């Protein structure tokens, strides 16, 4: 267990954080809610998509790892989501709510280049 590397979670919502910790932990990741040392992935909530760019910049100052953005304000099933992800400089964006499979698939896709 916990062999797949460290994931830092940045989400204000306690229940979502716990859910992420649970699913990611089950999948073999180590999860930290705070400043973990050299994580392999940062999962961050985007409260307001208009300020997503600023959030990305502040995260990139702290972490060198790839970033997976979550938001209750991303829409599902948009062909443009890939374009949005590309513009924000991430591999994937994940709309909330999400299933376990959606999460793990998005995490895998975000880590793709790193492994």
């Amino acid at each position, binding site marked *: 267990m916990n062999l797949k590397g460290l994931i830092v979670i940045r989400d204000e*919502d306690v*229940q*979502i954080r716990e*859910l992420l910790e*649970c*699913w990611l932990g089950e999948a073999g990741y180590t999860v930290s809610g705070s400043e973990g040392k050299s994580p392999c992935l940062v999962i961050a909530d985007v*409260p*307001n*998509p*208009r300020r*997503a760019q600023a959030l990305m910049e502040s995260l990139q100052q702290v972490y060198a790892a790839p970033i997976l953005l979550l*938001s*209750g*304000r*991303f*829409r*599902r*099933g*948009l*062909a*443009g*989501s*890939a*374009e*949005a992800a590309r*513009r*924000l400089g991430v591999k994937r*964006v994940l*709309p*909330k*709510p*999400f*299933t*376990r*499979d959606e999460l793990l*698939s998005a995490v895998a896709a975000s880590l793709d280049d790193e492994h």
Partner: protein
Amino acid sequence: MTSLWVVLLAVCLLVFVLGGLLTLRRQRALLAELKQIKEAEQRYALVMDASDDAFWDWRVAADDLYLSPRLLDLLGFAAGTKFAGRAALFKSLTIPPEDREALDRAVADHFAGNTPRVEIEFRVLVHGEERSMQAIGRATRNAEGEVVRWIGVMRDFTARRCAEKALRESQSALLDSDQRYELAMAASESGYWDWHVPTNRYFVSPRAFELNGYPAGTTWVNRDEYRAAINMHPEDSARWEAAREALFAGTGERLAMEVRYIVRGETRWHSLRGICRRDDTGKVIRWTGSTTDVTERKLAEQALSESERRLRQAQRLEAMGTLAGGIAHDFNNILGAVLGYGEMALRDAPKGSRLARDVESIMIAGERGRALVDRVLAFSRNAVGERVPVHIEKIVQEALGLVTAKVSPAVTVHADLRAGTAAILGDPTQVHQVVANLATNALQAMPSGGTLRVKLGLERVEAYRSATIGGIAAGEYLVLTVADSGEGISPDIIERIFDPFFTTKEVGTGTGLGLALVHGIVTELGGAIDVTSSPDTGTTFVVYLPRSGEASGVADSAEQAIPRGDGQRVLIVDDEEPLVSLATRTLEELGYAPVGFTSSSDALAAFRADPQRFDALVTDERMPGMSGSALIREVRDLRGSMPVVLMSGFLGARGGTAESPQAAIAADEILQKPVSARDLAMSLARVLRA
């Protein structure tokens, strides 16, 4: 006077003839008589002095001139002044040369016997002041016709001349004032009317006729002509006449109103200001006023209030969008927890247990919430820049195909799509939603049939203009028109149709988000919407989307966003044939190998024959005989890992009594109908990858 002297002369003659014959007594009597005569003469002189008249008497032969005291006074001489002769008098007078000349000529003319008398005016300087005199005189002639005496009266005409002059001046001033009034009216662009009520005489100024579009030279002589010919808007005319009659009946003085005239078929706004004058009994005798064209101001006011309305609407929608975004964020977190923990609970619950069914129901409710929030998000401003070039004509075709596939035979659909490969920058699914929502609304507006017209074309806009929603700047646009022949939208709600959760449909049949979504998407794409509606012709939505080049050159990047298949065999099941063929065609184009069925039992039979023949199942839920969920159960029993995409009209859109929650849980992906080709492609790619 002449008679006086004749009498005197006669008396003297009598005395002379009878003198020697008379006795002393008679002489005394004569003297007494003479005294009486003298007294009469004195009395006459007194009367003369008291009179305002002045006279002269010139004995020509002796050049003996008598001037009455009043005449001396008039000419500015002291009382008792004597003149040696007529020439001496004129030497003492200052008369303007032209007047003197006229005077001499008139007198000479008369003396020559050409005129019965002289009546002449001349000016003379009296104490340094110019006075006007009128002289009337007549010559007395002897038997030979020679002039022996020249007698006449003179009057000071100065006061009268002054009055006349003042009158002339005031008349000219009046004329000036009239002209000034006309000029002022012309300058103010106003016209005026004047009604003399007792005579019914009616005057309308030329400018007023001109303003109202009557040919030059039109006149009305009485107010009946006005009533018969005035081109005031009938509603306003009734209002104006009623107000005027009320004014006349009361004691008021003024009336002002803005009214419409129909001038050459065009509505012109005029500001009318009337004032009435009354006689002593309070009856109106005159009704006068001005009419001023205020159309430009009125239009500006209307434009201002229209732009204020737009601003309010934009602000309201903006506020709602912001609110929606905030709610969506919080609510999706909540739903994330509900669905996430629900998923875990379901995993641990014994399969088929009561607990499992209950949790499934909770998750179905969560899914419904998610679908609703997703629609709310559509009109909140995301602004992450989810934009790719979109081939509009293709999207419109797709969306129309889906929406009109199930249309009743009573509805005729006319599609006229002429945008070629023109593209906009946006999100294909969003554009699909715009078209689908407008077309669905149009169909719902015609429950008993009608015509749905959809047009797509390119239009170049030369100058900015505002639309019902947003503004259209100069530039090139893809213009989508969706028109129905339904009952139209009532004017009192047309402003609110774009508000989120505003719906005219029965509770439970619509979310009230369709047009809010259209508005949100179009606004985000930098477009605008015009709405026109009338009970006669139905409702027309015109959507302007700013063009951004061609789709042909950039289509690939749009296509890239859509995952393609690689020969996977997809089982498609829908009881409606058009939808089956559309889905089949779409998936073929995307590189899949689809097999379509319109019967769920036939589809199950085909699957049962070879469970490994198909790589994925795409099924409708609501079908006669075996439902989608029953089919999924059967398929999963044969092959548990079979990827399944469920298409359902259930999520968010309907009350959901008929459709099974279990099917939604069993499926890997659920798509809300109508389903766009892109959504289908993406869902399919996901379930196949999993």
